[in-house]
């Protein structure tokens, strides 16, 4: 059969010539889709605490999937349907090891998106790097996701705890001179990073630090210590259930400082649901945030999310978990769009590092070749007359020594069909 041999020789010759030719004349290589990318679909994976102690975050996964379903119904991205595989790790890092490996090795996903939890995701950072799997938009505020030299494929999403703490500290330095500022925090990296940020923004250490561990819900000793010390402002780095505990306990001890809570524990809907009849204790609570507040149905983004949830979700109300989940999904669609039809791992990373993605966030992302941190700041919020609203300007800073500066660009409006325009 001479024709195939001749064709083969031609191909071989072309390849030889291409290999030897100088690189200022790049010959177009045929596009080889990476693992997880096919003609009509792109597979993404995520690990989420659907059961176990962190199961109150379980709606994040549902929201991500609902948003991707919405995009798929409108043709997907570059003609590909987005398939999201959700695996439960029960907030147990050993299980995260197992399910993430299943996602990569058996389900052959292209990237991991929105992996949730600090201890859980820490377990798989190195594995994802070794397997060269893009690790996008980790749903945790730890600073570990911003290490571009060490983990080139990992990107954060949330404003990290230190950055957020700096903004709170800055606010306190400006507004609360003369107050005795104390801190009540979870006794782990979340708590410590947040309080470190507060002290950096404030310029001085806090007057008293008290902490808690999640296995003991009785926080009366700590609250009474703060009361005795005369704290007038208490900064909280707490999970929602412990925000509720400290508010209740303080009220029971007739201790009424100004509470300022990290966004991780201050979602009005979530904490309000836990407090039940004691919901009024949230009055006056100050916090920060960088996404639209879930209890504002008139916000165009919340309205969009509610429509999508009604059609593709569980028909419930939009809460903070839904806002986070859909925002992560929105950003994912944006980066997939920018990476192009002939998407590659390296190409995706470069696309993200170009930054400038506008969406529901109130502040910009810090993505660049030297930073893989997500949102770079936030805005202060306060609960007044049972409503949580933002006040003042948005601020941006970083986890390092950059100052806290105002960010004055107006928030973006969602596109009419809810799908980002490339």
């Amino acid at each position, binding site marked *: 059969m001479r024709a195939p041999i001749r064709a083969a020789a031609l191909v071989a010759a072309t390849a030889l010539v291409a290999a030897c030719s100088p690189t200022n004349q790049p010959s177009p290589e045929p596009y080889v889709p990476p693992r997880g990318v096919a003609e009509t679909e792109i597979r993404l994976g995520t690990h989420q605490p*659907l059961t176990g102690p962190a199961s109150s975050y379980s709606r994040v996964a549902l929201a991500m999937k609902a948003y991707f379903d919405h995009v798929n119904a409108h043709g997907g991205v570059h003609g590909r349907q987005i398939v999201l595989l959700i695996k439960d790790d029960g907030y147990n890092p050993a299980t995260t090891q197992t399910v993430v*490996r299943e996602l990569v090795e058996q389900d052959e996903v292209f990237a991991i998106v929105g992996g949730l939890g600090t201890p859980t995701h820490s377990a798989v950072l*190195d594995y994802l790097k070794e397997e060269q799997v893009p690790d996008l938009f980790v749903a945790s505020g730890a600073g570990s996701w911003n290490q571009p030299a060490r983990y080139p494929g990992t990107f954060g999403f949330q404003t990290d705890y230190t950055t957020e703490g700096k903004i709170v500290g800055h606010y306190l330095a400006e507004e609360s001179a003369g107050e005795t500022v104390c801190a009540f925090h979870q006794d782990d990296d979340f708590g410590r990073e947040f309080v470190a940020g507060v002290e950096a923004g404030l310029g001085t250490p806090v007057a008293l630090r008290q902490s808690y561990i999640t296995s003991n819900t009785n926080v009366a000793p700590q609250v009474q210590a703060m009361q005795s010390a005369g704290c007038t402002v208490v900064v909280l780095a707490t999970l929602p259930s412990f925000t509720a505990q400290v508010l209740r306990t303080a009220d029971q001890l007739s201790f009424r400082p100004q509470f300022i809570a990290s966004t991780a524990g201050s979602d009005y809907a979530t904490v309000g649901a836990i407090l039940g009849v004691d919901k009024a204790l949230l009055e006056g609570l100050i916090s920060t945030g960088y996404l639209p507040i879930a209890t504002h149905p008139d916000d165009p983004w919340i309205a969009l999310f509610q429509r999508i949830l009604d059609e593709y979700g569980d028909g419930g109300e939009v809460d903070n978990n839904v806002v986070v989940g859909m925002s992560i999904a929105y950003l994912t669609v944006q980066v997939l769009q920018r990476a192009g039809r002939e998407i590659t791992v390296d190409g995706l990373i470069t696309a993200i590092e170009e930054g400038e993605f506008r969406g529901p966030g109130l502040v910009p992302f810090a993505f660049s070749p030297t930073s893989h941190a997500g949102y770079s700041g936030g805005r202060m919020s306060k609960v007044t007359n049972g409503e949580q609203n933002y006040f003042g300007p948005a601020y941006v800073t970083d986890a390092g020594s950059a100052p806290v500066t105002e960010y004055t660009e107006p928030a973006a409006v969602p596109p009419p069909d809810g799908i980002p325009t490339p």
Partner: protein
Amino acid sequence: MRAFGQPTSPGARGAALGLVVLAAGVVATYALPGRLFAIGQVVAWLVAAAGLTILVGQSGQLSLGQAGFMATGAYAAALTQNALYAAGFTVSPPSGASGRFGASAAPTAAPWTLPVALLAGAAVAAAVGALLGLAAVRMRGAYLAGATLAFGLIVTPVTAVVDGLGGEQGLRVHVPRAPDPLGTAVGEGRVRVWVALVAAALVLAVLVAAVRGRWGRTLRAARDDEAAAALVGIPVARVRLAAFVVSAATAGLGGGLYVYLTGTVLPGYFGLTTSLFLLVAVVIGGAGRLVGVIGGTLFVVAVPIVTTEVMAAVNASPALQARLAGNAPLALLGLCLVLVTLARPGGRLAWLRRQVGVRRGARVGSPGVHGPGRDGTGGKPPTRHVPE
């Protein structure tokens, strides 16, 4: 050809079991290439469970804190490994990283640092086991269970309080990557599982030999009747302590293997859930049975995976899926535990073994031929010899 009626030596039996496990494991890494990590987890947990089954079944001491010793060994191995790496005992990395990821390829630890780290892990766990054991040998039954439970619960607090252990985010561990000819031919993941298999084979071989020999008889004598054992001259407290230390050492080795498999160490790997799952593995396989604990460990690792996949195949609406499918694997696992334990007296594998034992006895002849030593380890349902 062996003389009629002469039992095989404990050492030979141990070696045989070790080789079988090694061979079966290697085959599994090729037969189930998508499940390499699960196989590795089975092997690492098997090492810890093997020691626990000896402690619980042969020595009659119930421990609910085996994961605490796994953590001790894991952190000791991790710190040793990192210290050796920092001291410069490295070699150039094998090829593999490309593109954006290639820029971060750093030297890898020298291969000999791995056994050193693993041994350090086992040794430190054994030392802690000896310390705790000094107190524990005086305790019985549920009191020992309570003390070991409390021990297992301090893992996360200790990592939070002591500097340098990385807290809840744990530590990244510079474990050696497989050297090039082996790594590229076989695959890094597979090499790690094989290393774990070799360790497990050795541990099983040694334990089988010891249990079927004099040490095992001493353990069982001290377990069954302390007063009689003391009268015969057996130092009961020391025997119990030895079993405790051995169990802790194997747990430490298992923990170190898990660190090697993942390249990380986190307190979350070694919580109460892990201790309880190890105990489940022990009981399902029949407490004291080293062959059984292999099946038991396979069971506790495989059932969650299977139940999750069964539920994933059931296509439900998103709302239903979130609540139902999210919790269903847990319910199915619990149901499996209850049914398997209720259905077979003495554990699933002990029942099977009794069937085999009956047939073998009938073939060879009267029981007296085999002598007391052999019969002491077979046949009887292990749960008769219950820790108090």
